[in-house]
């Protein structure tokens, strides 16, 4: 099962893609992914219901978030009301340590994304201030990365023993499906995804 774990729709301030068009694009281009996760910036989209779109397209559409911490941006999977009450998703100065702790306590999984990117990625902060306890997974393949950013991320993951996932970080329709995560197990819900991320048995994958 292959899921693209990092994408933005028009719900994000810099997102320009409608979810329907993501699905249309995946089917039109025959992309080898079974679904994707919407990780809107600094928010969780609790309202949108994509079950009808899932039925029409046969794609799994899950929802997470991308929050901003003192160690860069972090994908959050398994968002629930307890988590939304635990910290303010809208802040840009969250503590990574706190996000990791609260997400775990509330039953979710937190994944620092594009860690090799300057300022908004974790690697440079780790070099300057040391590693943060509680990180288990990082995004080692990000579709929006430039230069050696993905290599830097992969090196960090190898050095620290983190597992790696992949996501396109798409903001426009045609960028979905550039990177993804291949899971050994089937995933049909956000609970399944959280369980799979915790259990292991996946790898980041990329297509040109």
């Amino acid at each position, binding site marked *: 099962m292959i899921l693209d774990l990092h994408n933005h729709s028009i719900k994000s301030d*810099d997102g*320009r*893609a*409608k979810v329907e*068009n993501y699905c*249309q*694009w995946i089917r*039109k*281009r025959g992309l080898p992914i079974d679904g994707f996760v919407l990780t809107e910036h600094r928010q969780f989209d609790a309202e949108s219901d994509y079950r009808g779109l899932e039925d029409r397209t046969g794609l799994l559409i899950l929802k997470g978030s991308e929050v901003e911490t003192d160690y860069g941006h972090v994908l959050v999977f398994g968002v629930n009301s307890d988590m939304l009450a635990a910290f303010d998703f809208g802040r840009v100065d969250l503590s990574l340590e706190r996000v990791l702790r609260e997400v775990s306590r509330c039953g979710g999984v937190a994944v620092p994304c594009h860690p090799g990117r300057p300022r908004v990625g974790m690697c440079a902060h780790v070099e300057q201030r040391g590693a943060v306890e509680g990180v288990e997974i990082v995004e080692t393949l990000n579709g*929006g990365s*430039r*230069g050696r950013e993905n290599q830097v991320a992969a090196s960090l993951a190898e050095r620290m023993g983190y597992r790696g996932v992949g996501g396109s970080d798409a*903001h*426009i*329709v*045609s*960028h979905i499906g550039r990177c993804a995560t291949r899971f050994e197990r089937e995933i049909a819900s956000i609970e399944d995804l959280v369980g799979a991320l915790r259990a292991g048995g996946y790898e980041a994958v990329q297509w040109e």
Partner: protein
Amino acid sequence: MTSRSYQEVEFGEDLPEVEVDVSLSNVTRFCHATGMLAGRFMNHEEAREEGLPQAIVPGIMSQGLLVSLVHRWAPGCGIRKIDTVFRAPVLVDSAPRCCGVVTDKDDDSRTVELDLTIVNEQGETRVLGTATVVL
């Protein structure tokens, strides 16, 4: 009038890519024409003094190059909206490509949505955006 009809355009259709001229001389001509006379656009050394790797293409020139891509594809079309996000500088004296693809059609308004990007020689997206085009 436009040379392309709404009916013949398909979702997923690629616009022909265009290699654009962002040589120092061409960018300098653009800067003089628009009054954007900052050194970071026209002088590599001055750009480096500002912490840039070399001179950079002005954002509105990048947007203009994307508009040009659309008009080459559909001469005479109306661009109702164009929206760009500048992810990274487009470097002067590099060899970027402008790319576009049809990502939506609206039968009521007879408009199409386009994804637009400027990518560098390494295939990295430097500018991305969308446009709404009336055919």
